[in-house]
């Protein structure tokens, strides 16, 4: 217990406590701060860029997580079928998740380039567009583009995790429901989904946490631009805290992420945790 406790204390509790403390100070990099109470938070609430980053983060997380769930579940169901070269296909599906984020982000940077985009090039050759699409130059298009890149990267994690969950469901449940005359849709709705709920809770909790705290993708693709339209709280916190030197304000911005992350965890804990009936009891 002691080594584990010490590790947690040094690498988790201390940084978290320090970050919390810094959020209440006017610390600058290289200069210890003084206690300023809620001043950093009050400023951030009134700061248009910080508010925009909150909106961007919520939009990014909700849209990307929802689509990752739908696509991941769909992919998991497909991979759960009897397919030729099943193992190979499953390994290939994992590739986007295995590639380092910075590398895949650079690939997307080229794909979305306003002058050299392969997508724009192909669409122009097909006669579907007449000028290159400005993927990262128009605020809403930029938001959707970074979300698409995040989905591409995150779907394999959801799919493979849900596939593992699908394989733990006893075939006898499907046989019994077939005998009762259940349609495939009814089987999915009344057998697959309820049995998968606990793993969905875990997977989506992680997925939401990863998405909410995403940094690398945005940093490589846009640095938060254009016009701060893709700044997430994590990237803005870094920009202000480290290159900008306002480490107290950066820490406060990072701390503002905690309530949202806690809410996501509590939602999955209370809303999607293992139900009593799954263990032979009655649902409350």
């Amino acid at each position, binding site marked *: 217990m002691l080594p584990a406790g010490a590790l947690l204390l040094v690498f988790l509790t201390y940084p978290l406590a320090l970050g919390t403390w810094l959020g209440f100070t*006017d610390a*600058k*990099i*290289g200069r210890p701060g003084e206690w300023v109470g809620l001043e950093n938070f009050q400023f951030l609430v009134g*700061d248009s*860029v910080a508010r925009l980053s909150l909106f961007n983060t919520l939009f990014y997380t909700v849209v990307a997580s929802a689509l990752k769930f739908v696509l991941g579940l769909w992919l998991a169901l497909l991979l759960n079928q009897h397919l030729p070269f099943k193992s190979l296909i499953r390994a290939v599906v994992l590739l986007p998740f295995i590639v380092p984020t910075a590398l895949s982000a650079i690939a997307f940077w080229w794909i979305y380039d306003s002058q*050299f985009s392969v997508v724009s090039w192909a669409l122009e050759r097909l006669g579907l567009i007449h000028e290159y699409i400005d993927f990262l130059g128009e605020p809403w298009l930029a938001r959707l583009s970074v979300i698409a890149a995040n989905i591409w990267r995150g779907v394999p994690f959801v799919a493979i995790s849900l596939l593992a969950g699908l394989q733990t469901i006893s075939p006898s449940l499907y046989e019994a429901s077939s005998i009762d005359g259940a349609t495939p849709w009814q089987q999915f709705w009344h057998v697959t989904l309820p049995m998968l709920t606990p793993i969905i809770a875990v997977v989506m909790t992680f997925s939401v946490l990863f998405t909410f705290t995403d940094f690398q993708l945005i940093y490589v693709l846009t640095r938060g631009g254009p*016009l701060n339209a893709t700044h997430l709280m994590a990237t803005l916190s870094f920009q*202000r805290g480290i290159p900008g030197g*306002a480490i107290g304000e950066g820490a406060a911005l990072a701390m503002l992420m905690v309530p949202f992350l806690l809410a996501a965890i509590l939602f999955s804990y209370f809303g999607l945790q293992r139900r009593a009936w799954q263990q032979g009891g009655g649902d409350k």
Partner: protein
Amino acid sequence: MSQFKRRDFLKISAGLAAGAGAPLIWMKHAHAQWNNAPEKGARLRVLRWSRFVQGDIDQYLANVKKFEAKYGIAVRVDNESWEDVRPKAAVAANTGAGPDIILGTNDDANLYPEKLVDVTDLANYLGRKYGGWYPVCEAYLRPDGKRWIGIPLGAAGSMMVYRESMLRAAGFSSFPKDTDAFLKMMKVLKDKSTPGGFALGHATGDANTWCHWLVWSFGGKMVDKNNRVVIDSPETLRALEYSRELYGTFVPGTLSWLDPNNNKAFLDGQISVTNNGISIYYAAKTSQDPKIKELVPDINHAEYPVGPAGVGTAFHLFLNQMIFKYTKYPRAAKEFIRFMMEEEQYGPWMQASIGYVAHPLAAYAANPIWTSDPKHTPYRDVMMNMRPAGYEGKLGYASAGVLADFIMVDMVAEAASGAKSPKAAAESAQKRAERYYKV
């Protein structure tokens, strides 16, 4: 350090330029004496920014080897992307551990002046020996007017880079000298389907340099001499109205441009004008691709046009060398910087990097690199003419924060693209900047 005025630079530069074809000739100051004995058994760690041009790092490391051979002091050189050096240096300053010497940028040294070794003796020695430091060096590294907190290394110049043939086709035999003529040229270039393009995304180098030039050229500024935020001014509004017209002439997509985008677009022949270091020219010169190599005779450089402010208002990436107080070997660290700044090392280094880093010491204006190819010459006077970040106030946490938070760039981008009116963009910038200048 003698009292050196801008007027004096012009005189010296003219004199030096006249003899630039010959080996470096300047009168070394008779009293430039240096006495320093590095600590026995010293070892040094140097953190510097990754090279922008290959010749820079090759020659820098060759100079390091010379130093090691001469003094028997081992030197380890680490490289980081230049934007990552600032946080690392800040952490080193904060924790009191890290590299002995850090090559930083802009106002890094002003963030933790009390953590840096006083290098006044070294600055005085180099200044006396090599014709004096350009005034901007003092703004950055002698903030109290007395103590030097770092030694200037130079500045990565950002100039107008253009295609001569495209300008000629648009009816311009030379690059415009003022903002009105510049706008006219950009409009014609757009009409001729050879538009220019300037980064308006969060491009730390390119966007910050040209956006600062633009606002300053109309008389706008983030702060006044007393560090009072004054960006929401009639001068700024005029600059932003101008930016709106200018943006209409740009190639599509500049709102998303980061630092590499304009280089790629220029070398691909998609734009006729942009702002950049000499690296585009260097890349074309050293390219193995015949299509890119063909561009070399057609690429040229020019200074930023002068606006209603009536004076040059360029902003460039300032480079410094800092010794941290936690070092066990401050004398060895000073010796290293002195050695690297001496003409025998600094001159070849400038030449190897074809002037990517412009010199901070007036005498180095005579280095042949600035005249061996006339296309290098516009970068020669970068440090003589530039304004510091945070002009016209004092440098420190606030100026560094404002720059890093892209407040100037965001303001220009918002107004230029029409996302906000010039007034709304300036008001927003004013509010954001006031937060930093509360320090």
